[in-house]
């Protein structure tokens, strides 16, 4: 009996909290037919926003994947002064409000900021793609690190040492032993990073200046549409955003369908 209660409790909670609102978006988006929704997401402005979103993610995700793996290796496999501090700093983006992140970047790169001079040299950071990429990288930094660190701890160093005694130089040890051992953690981290990069609103909103048709990512575009009372356009673009997110998760499931099973 209590098992059913638990099951219905969990399902009910999820339905009410997650499925119902997202489902409503889908419903409202297709209310006036698929054609109408298609038109709404293929306007030049919407397409540009989608392109920009994907571009920012295409730079931020690989960068944070590579850096995340290196950082995780440094945290687990080496001892250095200030390791505890670095470990804490990695979690900062999770704790800090994205708007604050945006403002911090604004202060650094804005007029009068430490690196504000870059704009005078023709390197535009704020109100341009570089700033949006930086903001997104800041926000999505922890995901790969946090997924990889516990797995690195768990696998230990014996396999790497065995490979070393068998003649493998450090890079080969990494490529043939370490990387395959952490691949699912990396993949999961990439999915979370991607999802967050695509959906990021607050920090990007501050640094982008929200120039319509120029520095608007999909989340910014959606909010803009909503505020200008084009609700069906906002809903349709929301569906695009939701589909990308769902697609990422499904892609991971497809290549790694037995996530629950241990790989021991």
């Amino acid at each position: 009996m209590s098992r059913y209660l638990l099951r219905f409790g969990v399902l009910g909670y999820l339905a009410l909290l997650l499925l119902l609102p997202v489902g409503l978006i889908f419903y409202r988006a297709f209310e006036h037919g698929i054609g109408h929704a298609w038109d709404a997401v293929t306007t030049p402005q919407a397409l540009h926003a989608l392109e920009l979103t994907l571009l920012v993610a295409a730079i931020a995700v690989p960068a944070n994947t590579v850096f995340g793996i290196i950082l995780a290796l440094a945290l687990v496999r080496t001892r250095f002064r200030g390791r505890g501090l670095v470990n804490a700093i990695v979690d900062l983006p999770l704790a800090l409000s994205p708007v604050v992140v945006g403002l911090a970047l604004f202060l650094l790169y804005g007029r009068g900021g430490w690196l504000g001079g870059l704009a005078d040299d023709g390197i535009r950071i704020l109100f341009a793609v570089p700033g949006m990429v930086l903001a997104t990288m800041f926000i999505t930094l922890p995901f790969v690190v946090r997924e990889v660190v516990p797995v690195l701890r768990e696998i230990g160093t014996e396999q790497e040492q065995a490979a070393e005694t068998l003649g493998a130089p450090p890079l080969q040890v990494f490529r043939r032993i370490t990387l395959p051992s952490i691949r699912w953690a990396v993949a999961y981290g990439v999915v979370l990073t991607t999802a967050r990069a695509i959906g990021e609103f607050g920090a990007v909103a501050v640094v982008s200046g929200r120039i319509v048709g120029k520095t608007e990512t999909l989340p910014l575009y959606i909010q803009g549409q909503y505020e200008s009372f084009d609700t069906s356009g906002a809903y349709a673009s929301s569906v695009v955003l939701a589909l990308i997110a769902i697609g990422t998760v499904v892609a991971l499931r497809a290549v790694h369908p037995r996530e629950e099973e241990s790989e021991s």
Partner: protein
Amino acid sequence: MSGITAIEVTKRFNGFTALDDVSVTIPEGSLTALLGPSGSGKSTLLRVIAGLEQPEAGQVLIGSEDVTDRPARARGVGMVFQHYAAFKHMTVRDNIAFGLTIRKRPKAEIDKRVHELLELVQLEGLAKRYPSQLSGGQRQRMALARALAVEPSVLLLDEPFGALDARVRKELRSWLRRLHDEVHVTTIIVTHDQEEAMEVAGQVVVLNEGRIEQIGSPRELYDAPSNEFVMGFVGPVNRLGETFVRPHDVDVRLQPEEGAFEAMVERVVHLGFEVRVELVRDDGQHLLAQLTQEEAEQLELERGQIVYVRPSRETVFSRSGGSPRSA
């Protein structure tokens, strides 16, 4: 194939001295055990020889070459770890082939070598399995094949049977002994189990607190231990004041005898052929006597019975070392 020499090796970890000025020679082609309790430095010595730890002082020679400054990958050692260190994402075949793949050997040669090794370690037919589909004993034999694949000049085994259950451990011990007779590669096995060391190795190096206590054949260690520690570590021992007596050198009689002292039987433990008698003297000192089943039957020992005990062989250690004498 080469011998191994460690010269005045010292290794510290955060102020803890794991190896204190250790020198030892491992003869070419021998099977040598590093024996000692945990924390004695035996594993550290093995890892220093492998190149997985860098010593603060001292030298390591493999053959006649000084390898102290060489990384592990360039030392030509084969290493087997206590917890197998199996490459979990590779098949048995790829595990064994790893060293050869790194060396970019042609596929046909690798296949041939893997096939030979699978036969040698009796894992034929399991080439396509993953380590998670093997038993502990099978995994360790795979690890051994992997280490042997690159034809190492020395084979280093770090508590290789420590994670296995008692029966498999015994099987693998005698198997390793036979394997060594076949392959003849200079081998060091680290163990804390004196029985394992004495059964497998031709030479045993006893370590304690980062220092070498004694080096010798199993028989020398047992019959002529150089100090109290070695005597106690390689077998059970009774201490009677300044003298040490092995339980099988304790004669138990029913009648008083010259040189014998009185003791009471506390417990009689039947272990098949061996019967262990726990005794207590009137001064409260406990001691153990080891009898054969036949002897025990003749004596008909019972709990609470008074018997007369005389050591037939005892050892006294002077400052300079042991001097066993027979009484």
